[in-house]
């Protein structure tokens, strides 16, 4: 292996860090501040995203079917809905369950509802469908309507000779599809809005971080411009001069990343526990992400940020001083 002096450059990077304690500390502090802000928005971002996803998964539609629908038709409908793109879960709700739901809603008048038990049950059976992607709502509804109609006509063709009562002649086995038309579009808008906002904040913070770090390094480089010009006189290449600064930038970035990760980690679990024990969140049955769940992503983000800002910051700030 050819000796290329790289260990010298790494040694220089480290020794610069200790020799310029003041500017090192300033750089690390600034970086921790921006990375901390970054971390807060990141934590809020992923949690909002996760909550919205949970809410979305709970949204869906109820597909009511005619009482006359056969068991076979029901099964066919269920399998075909399940196979649709964008469908999360399909749960069958019997006539009895529908009545029970209504009963719990009308607690005081249970007696009055007794008349609807058994044969007299007027509540239709239904499939409760939830979606993986709310934006597919209309599409899925149309598909379900089409399937309902298809199954109804298939039945008729097969049993063409059978006596079918007038009243059972429906165009579709589906009686009605309901969903909260107000909630879904609003939810879609909120999800989009929040994602865009977080994205913009991320980019702004990134630009601020790079500017601050590159300015801090610029000061260090400026303080060492004499050293740089001496190196140039002795015949150092730009690469040779640049490396210790880049290594210094990376070391500063990594130290800042580790410290910020610790701070965010400790703070995060504390905040999450406080928020999760609040009544509102418990009522709507939504959980927030634990730190272990975001730790991997946030570590990667921090590592990339720390090293990236270190490299970009030092390269940007060196440019001017290399033209001797």
């Amino acid at each position, binding site marked *: 292996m050819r*000796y*290329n*002096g790289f260990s*010298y450059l790494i040694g220089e990077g480290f020794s610069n860090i200790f*020799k310029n304690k003041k500017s090192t500390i300033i750089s690390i502090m600034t970086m921790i501040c921006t990375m901390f802000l970054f971390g807060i928005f990141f934590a809020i971002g992923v949690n909002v995203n996760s909550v919205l996803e949970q809410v979305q998964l709970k949204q869906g539609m109820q597909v009511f079917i005619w009482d006359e629908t056969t068991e076979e038709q029901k099964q066919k409908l269920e399998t075909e809905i399940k196979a649709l793109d964008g469908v999360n879960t399909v749960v069958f709700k019997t006539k009895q369950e529908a009545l029970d739901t209504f009963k719990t809603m009308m607690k005081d008048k249970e007696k009055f509802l007794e008349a609807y038990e058994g044969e007299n049950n007027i509540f239709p059976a239904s499939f409760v469908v939830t979606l993986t992607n709310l934006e597919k709502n209309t599409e899925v509804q149309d598909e379900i309507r089409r399937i309902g109609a298809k199954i109804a006509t298939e039945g008729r063709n097969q049993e063409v000779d059978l006596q079918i009562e007038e009243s059972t002649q429906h165009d579709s086995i589906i009686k009605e599809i309901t969903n909260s038309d107000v909630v879904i579009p609003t939810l879609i808008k909120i999800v989009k809005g929040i994602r865009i906002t977080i994205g913009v904040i991320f980019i702004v913070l990134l630009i601020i971080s790079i500017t601050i770090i590159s300015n801090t390094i610029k000061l260090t480089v400026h303080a060492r411009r*004499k*050293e740089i*010009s*001496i*190196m*140039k*006189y*002795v*015949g*150092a*290449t*730009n690469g*040779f001069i640049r490396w210790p600064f880049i290594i210094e930038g990376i070391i500063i970035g990594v130290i800042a990343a580790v410290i910020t990760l610790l701070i965010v980690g400790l703070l995060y679990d504390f905040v999450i526990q406080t928020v999760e024990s609040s009544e509102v969140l418990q009522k709507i049955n939504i959980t927030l992400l634990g730190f272990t769940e975001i730790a991997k992503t946030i570590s990667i983000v921090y590592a990339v940020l720390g090293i990236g800002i270190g490299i970009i910051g030092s390269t940007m700030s060196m440019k001017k001083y290399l033209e*001797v």
Partner: protein
Amino acid sequence: MIEFKNVSKIYETGTEAVHDATFTIDKGEFAFLVGTSGSGKSTLIKLILKEEEATKGNIIINSKDITFLKAKRIPYLRRSMGVVFQDFRLLPDKTVYENVAFAMYIVKATPKHIRRNVPMVLSLVGLSNKARCYPNELSGGEQQRVALARALVNNPSMIIADEPTGNLDPETAWEIMNLLNEINARGTTVVMATHAKDIVNKMKKRVIQIDKGIIVRDDKKGGY
């Protein structure tokens, strides 16, 4: 070794610091560049180091025309010459040893090579016992000797010095001159810009005199 062919240098300010300079300094020569303040001595040195671009003419160093040398190649040009300045230009946070070794790291010398050469050149300039000192713990003469050691450590074919004795008292200045003379005796070309009349007079070396950018005298064994 160093050849100037009708070289002129006009700074962006409009000042013509060198006008139509033509001269050749051969291998192994010792040449003084003399002239009043502002006559253009430092500019000539900067042209040799490729720190400044010639406006006109050609400069040939070690039989290579450096007039249109690419910026990327400049570091390699500078490695063929050891440079010494009036203000020493040592790295303040490195010891004497590190200041010299640093010049070897730049040319990617092996650690073994560095451990052998640095003490050798420090003993040549008489600073073996100061290896662990920092520049601010040394006298001006000692600092200039460190700079000289740094210039020598990579075995350059020439030493380029711009007023190396400018900040030193006469006695210390002679220490440096004796060293330069010794180095020259070993075959290294020396080019030195200076104001020091008595040094130039006593050394009896080649003298190139420049006045307002024009070379007015070139004596093989001259005085100031």
